[in-house]
């Protein structure tokens, strides 16, 4: 339970230290708040993806004996991580009060952002769970994947530092829309920017449209290889 707080907190402190050596802009927001507001959704994403991957293998006992929709297991992994997300959000709220952040009606965007965030994590998670059940390499590769993913996501740095000509390509990463959306809504009291948001919804939909049917197809044979 304490890990729910600790993980993003430690990363926040590390990034803050990093900022002491390297000049990282933060759109005029206190850097602690700037990084932590991104780390809360980001930690959720990495943790739920990491939990989804082996969710089939760890539930082998049940899967081999009872026929139920296999999506339940990655879905449960995402839902359990959502609880951690809620926990670390409490600290975020406390920080927002401390830094006297103005909030308004734009907070109504939060449910939308949370659903989008969970959908993205689920889409990536079931892909890894489905493939990882047959080839464990996919599960072993997950930490490297999410680590690399961090560098192409505006967690440490703001989206504004990404060169204009690269931005449309950069926004193909659905987590860009999610994290920028959280920052806009929570810290800048403005609605999520249109472009990254639309891009995130589109990419997540496409990703789900590929990974879910693939997972369904593969799931029929889970019991055979477990």
């Amino acid at each position, binding site marked *: 339970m304490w890990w729910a707080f600790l993980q993003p907190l430690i990363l926040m402190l590390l990034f803050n230290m990093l900022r002491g050596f390297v000049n990282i802009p933060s759109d005029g927001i206190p850097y602690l708040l700037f990084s932590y507001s991104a780390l809360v959704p980001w930690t959720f994403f990495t943790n739920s993806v990491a939990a989804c991957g082996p969710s089939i293998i760890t539930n082998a006992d049940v899967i081999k004996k009872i*026929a139920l929709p296999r999506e339940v297991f990655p879905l449960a992994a995402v839902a359990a991580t959502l609880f951690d997300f809620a926990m670390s959000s409490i600290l975020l709220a406390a920080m927002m009060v401390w830094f006297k952040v103005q909030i308004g009606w734009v907070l109504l965007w939060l449910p939308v952002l949370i659903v989008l965030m969970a959908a993205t994590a689920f889409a990536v998670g079931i892909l890894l769970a489905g493939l990882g059940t047959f080839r464990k390499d996919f599960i072993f590769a997950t930490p490297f994947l999410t680590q690399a993913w961090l560098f192409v996501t505006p967690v440490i740095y703001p989206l504004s530092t990404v060169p204009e000509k690269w931005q449309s390509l950069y926004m193909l990463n659905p987590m860009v829309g999610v994290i920028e959306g959280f920052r806009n809504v929570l810290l800048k009291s403005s609605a999520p920017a249109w472009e990254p948001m639309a891009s995130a919804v589109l990419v997540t939909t496409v990703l789900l449209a590929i990974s879910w049917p693939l997972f369904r197809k593969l799931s029929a044979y889970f019991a055979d290889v477990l």
Partner: protein
Amino acid sequence: MLVSKDVAIRIQGLWKRYGLPVPDIVRRTFNLATRATGLKKSRDNGPWALRDINLEVNKGETVAIVGRNGAGKSTLLKVLAGVTTPTSGRVEVYGRIFPMIELNAGLNMELTGRENVRLLGAVMGFSRLEIESKLPEIEEFTELGEWFDRPVRMYSSGMLGRLGFGVAINVDSDVILIDETFAVGDLKFQNKSMARVKQMRESGATVLLVSHSLDSLQFVAKTGVVLEEGRLVAAGSSLEAISAYETLVFRSEQQRLEHRVRARISSEEVNIFSARVYTKDGESLTEVPSGVPFGIEVDLQLNRQVQKPMFSMGLVNAAGILCKWNVSEEDGLSVLGDGDRYVLRVWYPQNHLANGAYEGHFAARDVASYETLERIAGIVSFAVVGSQRARGIVTGKCRWELAPWNSAEGSSQGVGIRE
């Protein structure tokens, strides 16, 4: 398509091979590629677990599925349960299915028995209301008492099984698959479970049972099918299926053991050239008719000069019970070991062996030192076959009497065991 109302399960041309089916074209190109680069050949997709199964089960039938280990029984249940998909063919199950492939699947060790019943019900797709209404019944059936409200991790394996079985057979389902679960609990619970399955059958539920306990299968199942190497080799009444299965087991056991014996057993002390079961006329045979005398002949050579050899022959049945054991000396064989190659004959003038498969366990000793020269389990194997069922260890008719009770004599005779 017109579906007959009475059919509960319909299986048409079911083939099943484990593992992810790789499309043929992909495999072929992959093979080509690996062959071109000289790498090792890709593995075959493995053997078929089920081959061309066609089966129709009507509503309210109780079907026993028998077969040896690896015959595909559990695979068939898994396919029916929807745990795994058929490689090809159609499987249709009409009505709500409750698979009990392994009873303690899906139990959460930290939750109590009661909570686990709710969990299991939810997993199986029963509504909360349905499960709540069945809870008292399940609680009573499982006979767990106060344990019902304790965490499952404290349960014994028998209690776990009782819990799972209690849920399986107390909720309303149309088709129930039971795999090897009569071994659960003590004798009393087993009997109760069997009675409950019978009762379910009467109320119209379809039950498929896999068990190695042929007696219990015979008790609850009306019909039976036999699987062998993934094929459905026999179907009929449960008695027919069970005897077909028994014959199958005897035959294959014999083949295996015959093969082993033919490949000459030799050790430092003894060479066995051949061993066979023979009849009164001296003919070899592998199936001894029930009640008919037979003998076992062993052609052997002792590699050590033994002053006075002594032999023993034990007959062990399929369950590993030693049914008969004879020692040559006790039975009056007294020869001096002047040669080194012998033909040893053991004749059984009274064959009281019950139907079943048997192995001969042979030992050679030196009387003087009472030292065992060689002990060979399964030197011969044979089956005793007859019309009656393989029950008990010995056969032989009893004389039965049913006399009308006579009140005048009853008091003096009926009481009994007084000398």
